[in-house]
């Protein structure tokens, strides 16, 4: 967790503070300024309309996933119902927007995420007072139950949830400021990017407070936390409420982006998605969920165009990560951190080469699995559409034995070759670390 990093990071930061004020402030603020600049120029690099939409979605997901990690990564609370605060934030935001439009209130669009935040905080407190009575597995099940409760209520409270169609609004009808009506996507992108940056800074700052540190302590050893004077339940309750606040902001941003909120935003699917994003990115660091949010959003948009069973691939990717890389992508990157810190660049390059070599059979194996899956899908459900499908832009006849034989060969051959590379990768890894230890100051 960033506690290992932070154990290291704490000391440099401490030393930074003992330097003259200006230098310290610059060092702390530099990464955020760089991020702000990056957010600002991204639309200039990715100019298409669909890219802009995807960037907007990524911004929303980053806030949502980071809020989720306040629970799981920081405090050890596994929630299956976090979308409740996201969705309710969206609903309250959309109702607020409609009320503002109807009553011509002088409230501009950029302030709407505050409504989402308020909603998230409110419901976080209400449901959190009940949820945080238990921890661990029980908490996870309770979050699931509460999520279902709210999702099912959406069919009953039709006035608030708008029934099956949901509630819609028009973001251009609010008070215009600086001549912006937020009709074009580019304006919405900058709104989202601004709020995303704000939330990122806020959530990062939270980890560097006494409360944030105790969240980690409660995650590690709740009993010990009691015996140093902290009530673990109170720590969890506050974490839960604050996580709800930021989820609500994300939900409001989504409401602004889509101009529509429906009951699927509070449902199990949305809760599962943010869990996936945070976990795949890596719950052990602050940047993990950011990586996960970007990746999952990209996959979701790209894959759903290419194949109908993209959710299956998601699930398999998730299981694969749980089994083989439980610290996520960020964790995999962090494993190499000692090499970087020891400036062992040569060994790192060599290691990267070995990875590439091992990647080839892995890709063959993957291709075989995809072929198998797509063919099965087409034969069973889509049989009426004929048996020819297009996999990687190659026409394949799902009914012919040759295709199945090809899949079998790809899978078996790919797996066998891949297996052969494992000892090579292992050896290269140890080699790289040994060299780094010899060369520099690897711990």
């Amino acid at each position, binding site marked *: 967790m960033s506690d290992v990093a*932070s*154990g290291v990071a704490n000391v440099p930061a401490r030393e930074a503070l003992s330097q003259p004020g200006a230098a310290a402030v610059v060092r702390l603020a530099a990464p955020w300024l760089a991020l702000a600049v990056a957010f600002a120029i991204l639309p200039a690099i990715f100019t298409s309309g669909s890219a802009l939409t995807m960037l907007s979605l990524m911004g929303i997901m980053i806030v949502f996933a980071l809020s989720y990690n306040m629970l799981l990564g920081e405090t050890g609370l596994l929630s299956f119902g976090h979308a409740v605060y996201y969705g309710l934030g969206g609903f309250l935001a959309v109702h607020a927007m409609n009320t503002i439009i109807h009553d011509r209130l002088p409230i501009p669009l950029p302030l709407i995420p505050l409504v989402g935040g308020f909603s998230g905080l409110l419901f976080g407190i209400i449901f959190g007072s009940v949820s945080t009575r238990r921890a661990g597995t029980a908490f996870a099940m309770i979050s699931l139950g509460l999520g279902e409760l709210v999702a099912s209520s959406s069919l009953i409270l039709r006035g608030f949830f708008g029934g099956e169609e949901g509630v819609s609004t028009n973001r251009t009808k609010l008070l215009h400021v600086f001549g912006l009506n937020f009709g074009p996507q580019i304006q919405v992108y900058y709104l989202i990017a601004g709020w995303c940056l704000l939330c990122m800074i806020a959530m990062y700052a939270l980890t560097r407070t*006494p409360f944030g540190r105790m969240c980690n302590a409660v995650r590690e050893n709740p009993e010990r936390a009691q*015996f*140093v*004077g902290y009530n673990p339940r109170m720590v969890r309750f506050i974490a839960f409420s604050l996580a709800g606040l930021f989820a609500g902001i994300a939900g409001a941003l989504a409401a602004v982006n889509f101009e529509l909120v429906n009951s699927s935003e509070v449902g199990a699917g949305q809760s599962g998605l943010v869990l996936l994003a945070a976990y795949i990115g890596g719950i052990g660091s602050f940047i993990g969920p950011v990586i996960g949010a970007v990746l999952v959003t990209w996959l979701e948009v790209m894959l759903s165009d290419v194949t109908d069973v993209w959710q299956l691939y998601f699930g398999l990717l998730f299981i694969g990560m749980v089994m083989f890389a439980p610290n996520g992508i960020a964790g995999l990157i962090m494993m190499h951190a000692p090499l970087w810190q020891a400036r062992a660049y040569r060994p790192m390059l060599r290691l990267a080469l070995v990875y590439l070599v091992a990647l080839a059979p892995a890709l063959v194996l993957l291709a075989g699995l995809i072929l198998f899956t797509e063919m099965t899908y087409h034969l069973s459900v889509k049989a009426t559409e004929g048996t020819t499908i297009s996999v990687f832009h190659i026409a394949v006849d799902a009914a012919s034995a040759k295709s199945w034989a090809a899949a079998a060969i790809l899978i078996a051959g790919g797996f066998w070759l891949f297996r052969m590379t494992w000892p090579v990768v292992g050896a290269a890894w140890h080699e790289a670390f040994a060299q780094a230890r010899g060369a520099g100051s690897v711990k």
Partner: protein
Amino acid sequence: MTAPAIELVDLHKNFGATQIIRGVSLSVPAGQRHAIIGPNGAGKSTLFNLISGRFTPTSGTVRLNGEDVTGLPPHVINRRGLSRSFQVTNIFPRLSVWENIRCAVLWSLGYKYAFWRGIEALPDVRARTEAILESIELINRRRVQAGVLAYAEQRALEIGITIAGGAGIILLDEPSAGMSVAEAARAVALIRKVSEGRTLIMIEHDMGVVFDLADRISVLVYGQIIASDIPARIKQDRAVQTAYLGTAA
């Protein structure tokens, strides 16, 4: 006359039908170093759990500085000035040594659940953490992940976490368990240093440590205190000898 630091009045604890603590009464005045010894299974750790709030007594009263704390949750008792260590090392394994101690000083410095103040900007937190680390001689290991420390270092960290909050009453559960003679001697010196001016109650098996440190010894056998006196007299007490050796020496 000031109230004793710890007062136990006819404490009982049953687990189902099994009686573990069967009527323990004890009074430890402030500033005393008190050792609790006894054969395995006597209920010593259970007694600590009752005092520190981890278990609720079946009957009886626990008083801290004169106030009734029976049945209060551990964090409340801790806030009232009692801190304890554990027989099986109970630290924050994936946090660094520095973080472990820092978490232990936060409440006593009054920061509570503050999520609006940056922790790096709190000089008293940093100063106190450094001081504790110096006293347990782990200042050079402050960046190491607590879970990978050597055993004796983890025990020292455990003691550090226990005293970091500045509690006036300290309970140490077998602090020198599993240590070599040299390590135990260092632990004793540390304990003597940190318990200066505080009340110390200690569970120990190492008689050398006990007789070295304790002002007073109580002997717990089958959930009851069979003797409570100064070390010299405990050594000669027949009931104690019988309990430990089976026959009178």
